[in-house]
């Protein structure tokens, strides 16, 4: 029987590995998710069996029912357009859970044995060795940063906090001190024998400062960098779980946590690369935004839905470029409707997907999939860029920085070198946008001045609806 539980844990670990592997291919992704969920169920049941002798069942049952209920309702109600903030929120709860685990481990031993006879690193104590003490501190710090950082990301993504970069002088130095402080304090706590009450208070200080670091580190990061930040927070929640695994010396926790840590890191790399920025510059450098240069346009040509509809009637090939504005306007279904009308006339239609369009990795793919856009029509940047020259009309829906030719031509531009969609090479570019205000980079878009660009001002959904109506009328 001694082998049963470890083997069950091993089975869960293997299922997690298979699950993640299958999630990286379209064909197998669904089964991958099911495998991971099964592994989780095994992990929970086995852990319950292990502690069943001394389990505090009322706490366990209450926690499971409340948590599962909230998670289920939230996951079923959320709109596809709100997916980025929902993922950020769930991620925050994962990090928060790891922080609470660490806190509980420290509290458990001091409160259970008042008078201080039960010291750290003694046999049978919840924290029985120096390594698990250090891990618990790291789990507390990383978990708390993940929690508050994800909450800030959530608030930024749903618009409660403005997405603009907000910064203050010396923030990196302050954050470094605030990050180093709790870790040092925690290490000191691990190796000294202070009064239980003092330890508990100091642990709460560590928690509080870590939460603050999560806020001050995430707040200054602009909305356009959100895909990078969300991926990184995702990675951190895995690392926090791994640390909790070291603290309670559970190999399954270590394995699953580090798998998540690694996968989050890969996504972070992909996202940083797509913006031509290093992870360090996303996190530590102020970016654009500050000047908010709105002017300087000399050649803006305003058009209307009617005129664009006429333009589309003669087009052989039309490319849609979705951006965050499409998600905000929830215009994915209307876009699909217009595309279908075009296809019915024999027009070739494609969607150009920039890797960081939107606010999370793959955001546009999810949105357009919801509107039943065929997978083959979503074309990645490198594949579609050579094709813009043969495109009659490119319709930009709420994208801005990812189509700014300044990235190619202007050496002193903050986005110089960032890979963009070369929409300016198509015969006509129609930019549907609410105003001339800059994107998150805070710089003017030279594309708007190009001779082959026309602007249609307004909400993407309303403009598209008008185009669809016009199209049906003329047909």
């Amino acid at each position: 029987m001694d082998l049963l539980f470890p083997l069950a844990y091993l089975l869960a670990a293997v299922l997690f590995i298979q699950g993640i592997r299958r999630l990286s291919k379209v064909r197998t992704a669904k089964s991958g998710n099911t495998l991971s969920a099964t592994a989780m169920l095994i992990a929970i049941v086995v852990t319950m069996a292990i502690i069943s002798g001394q389990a505090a069942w009322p706490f366990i049952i209450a926690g499971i029912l409340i948590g599962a209920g909230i998670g289920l309702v939230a996951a079923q109600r959320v709109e596809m357009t709100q997916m980025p903030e929902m993922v950020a929120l769930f991620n925050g709860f994962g990090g928060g859970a790891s922080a609470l685990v660490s806190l509980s481990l420290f509290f458990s031993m001091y409160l259970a044995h008042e008078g201080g006879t039960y010291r750290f690193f003694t046999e049978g104590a919840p924290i029985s060795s120096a390594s698990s003490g250090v891990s618990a501190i790291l789990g507390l710090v990383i978990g708390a940063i993940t929690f508050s950082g994800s909450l800030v990301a959530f608030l930024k993504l749903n618009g409660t906090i403005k997405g603009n970069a907000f910064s203050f002088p010396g923030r990196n130095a302050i954050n470094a001190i605030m990050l180093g402080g709790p870790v040092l304090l925690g290490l000191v706590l691990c190796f000294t024998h202070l009064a239980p009450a003092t330890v508990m208070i100091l642990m709460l200080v560590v928690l509080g400062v870590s939460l603050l670091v999560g806020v001050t580190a995430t707040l200054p990061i602009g909305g356009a960098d959100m895909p990078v930040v969300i991926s990184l927070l995702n990675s951190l929640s895995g690392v926090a779980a791994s640390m909790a695994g070291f603290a309670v010396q559970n190999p399954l926790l270590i394995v699953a946590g580090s798998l998540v840590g690694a996968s989050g890191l890969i996504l972070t790399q992909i996202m940083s690369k797509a913006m031509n920025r290093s992870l360090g510059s996303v996190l530590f450098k102020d970016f654009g935004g500050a000047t908010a240069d709105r002017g300087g346009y000399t050649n803006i040509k305003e058009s209307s839905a009617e005129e664009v509809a006429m333009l589309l009637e003669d087009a052989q090939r039309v490319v849609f470029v979705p951006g965050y504005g499409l998600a905000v306007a929830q215009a994915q279904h209307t876009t699909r409707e217009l595309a279908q009308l075009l296809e019915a006339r024999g027009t070739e239609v494609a969607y150009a997907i920039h890797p960081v369009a939107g606010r999370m990795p793959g955001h546009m793919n999810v949105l357009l999939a919801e509107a039943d856009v065929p997978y083959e029509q979503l074309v990645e940047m490198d594949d579609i860029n050579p094709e813009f020259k043969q495109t009659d009309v490119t319709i930009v829906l709420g994208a801005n920085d990812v189509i700014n030719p300044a990235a190619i031509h202007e050496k002193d531009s903050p986005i110089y070198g960032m890979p963009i969609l070369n929409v300016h090479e198509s015969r006509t570019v129609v930019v549907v946008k609410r105003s001339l205000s800059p994107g998150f980079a805070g710089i003017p878009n030279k594309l708007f001045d190009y001779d082959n660009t026309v602007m249609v001002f307004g909400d993407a959904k309303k403009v598209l609806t008008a185009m669809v109506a016009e199209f049906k009328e003329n047909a």
Partner: protein
Amino acid sequence: MDTVTIQQAMDAFRPLSVGLFVFALAIFLGYELITKVPPTLHTPLMSGANAISGITIVGALYCAQAEFAFLANLLGAAAITFAMINVVGGFVVTRRMLAMFGGRK
């Protein structure tokens, strides 16, 4: 002076060293598993991996033991709640997203 045998020294490090081995190997494994992910799957992969990070529920359950103090149990219950939101919410949301991709094949 007490002499420490090599065996004793090894034993003292065993839990940590095994853990570190597992940690390092799992990170490399995770990295190799998904180096090439199509952009369509970036969101579901992130959200699915996010659900897996709820594995910290194992640690949370460990905290809810009767021999521990009330406050520790209470924190454990809060950790279980948080982790379950992450786990259930994460898997359900991922399934919803993937269902859309599979809808028209």
